[in-house]
């Protein structure tokens, strides 16, 4: 079952800097939505507030009807929210399979033993790392590390998946593999919030986009339409192009 994600009037200050100002949006179950904006516009900060990595200074985050605003990351995870990180963060002392088993062992359903091993293998197969659970993380290529991180996020059996520039740094053929993977998630009914700079991916995956600039939401709507709006083009490229 997918849960809906609601953000309302989210607010975050770092000292004198307002990083996120009054951000509200919501995702329907099973939707893949892009969260766009130039560097420093507050996208990752929003992600961090949803996942509990950063406390909010104001506003609320709800998953379905549950308020997760003040929850720590481990409790947010148990409410069906999983994420990947902007810079891929594998756990090097664990094997590839153990990285995935970790989320299974401490996710919503707390799998362990043979069951967890089988499920980990299943998740690895889903992202294209079949039979490679015994390998050391350090030996994986960049795309494979990203795949493993995706498998780890999926292993907690989330309703909502936050992908923070998961497609960044891939070459064109890897990119199309990545896009295909995210599309598969959609088929499984997972709600995805995608922070992304790669427009090709956004157009291919996201039915809807939310654009942020300087901590505020400046546009929201169907992808093709939003990306053509003057305010969005101005935020990305400056006045001359609008």
């Amino acid at each position, binding site marked *: 079952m997918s849960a809906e994600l609601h953000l309302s009037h989210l607010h975050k200050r770092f000292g004198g800097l307002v990083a996120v100002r009054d951000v509200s949006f919501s995702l329907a179950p099973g939707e893949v939505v892009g969260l766009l904006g130039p560097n420093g516009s507050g996208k990752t900060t929003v992600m961090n507030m949803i996942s509990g990595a950063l406390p909010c200074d104001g506003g609320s985050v709800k998953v379905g009807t549950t308020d997760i605003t003040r929850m720590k990351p*481990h409790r947010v995870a148990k409410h069906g929210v*999983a994420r990947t990180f902007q810079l891929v963060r594998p756990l090097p002392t*664990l094997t590839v399979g*153990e990285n995935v088993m970790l989320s299974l*062992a401490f996710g919503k359903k707390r799998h*362990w033993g043979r069951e967890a091993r089988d499920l980990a293998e299943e998740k690895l197969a889903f992202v294209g790392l079949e039979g490679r659970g015994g390998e050391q993380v350090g030996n994986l290529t960049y795309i494979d590390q990203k795949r493993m991180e995706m498998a780890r996020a999926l292993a907690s059996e989330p309703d909502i998946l936050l992908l923070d520039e998961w497609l960044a740094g891939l070459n064109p053929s890897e990119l199309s593999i990545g896009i295909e993977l995210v599309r598969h998630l959609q088929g499984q009914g997972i709600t995805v919030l995608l922070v992304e700079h790669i427009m090709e991916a956004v157009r291919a995956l996201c039915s809807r986009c939310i654009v942020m600039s300087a901590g505020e939401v400046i546009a929201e709507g169907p992808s093709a339409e939003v990306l053509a709006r003057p305010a969005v083009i101005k935020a990305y490229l400056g006045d001359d192009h609008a």
Partner: protein
Amino acid sequence: MKTPLAFALAAVVLAALAAAPLFIPDYWTGVLLGMTGYVALATAWALFSGPTRYVSLATVAFFGVGAYTVAVLNEVLPYPLVLLCAGGIGAAMALVVGLSTLRLAGVYFVIFTFGLAELVRQTVSWWEVNVTYTMGRYVFLPFEGRHIYWQLLALAAVTLLISWAIGRSRLGLALKAIGDDETVAAHAGINVTRIKLMLFVISATLITLVGAIQAPRWTYIEPSIVFNPTVSFMTLIMALLGGAMRLWGPLVGAVPLFLLFEWLSVSFPDHFSIILGLLFILIVFVMPQGVLAKLEDLRGRGKP
């Protein structure tokens, strides 16, 4: 090796070690006693500090508190209750220390734990001088070396058993993840603070019990004896030498180093500290991952 076979083998070795004092001279029982004490200390230390990499120098704080609890209570309560009290006090102290310090990371944690050991020692000294007017206490318990040795042997076996059980459980996986990246661990659903605290308390309680059990051996106890910081350093270096991330690592490090220290302190009593320091440096440089990892490495390289 299959698990039942490994257990049978461990039981045989344990029985042989337990029978040893009946056949060897008292001096060697004493050596075995000291060695078993350090095996228990190093294994207990590595329970928490191994996977999480929170290097604790507070070993002697708990060790000393254990010894002092016995010194204070041995004439008031029956011995099993004294041990229970020591364990309880160690656990309570670890809980307080853990709650206030586990937010510290890296070198700050190391310095804090070192400071803690000094703080406890100075506090006990101050209390004894100014409140109870007794610098030094006597422990009169009807134990011979082998009795203490048997208790330590049992404690070391229990510690290894706990370490084995944790290593197989999801707790072990969580601890390794915490050592790698606490943020990722938390986002995978792990209650990082609770698990760190839990392991710190288990580890500290075991360390306190080692101190408590060893107390009768000294007969006379004062802060400079039972709060000697060398205990913390020895425990640390033993665990590192063997490999703090492995079940048998601390044991593999503790046995040879204890024998070496014993020989050094007899043969070079004046230069003991210098040699100890050099040895620390050597171990950290040559085998930062420990002997067991080094052996695996060499074996791996031997293959084509």
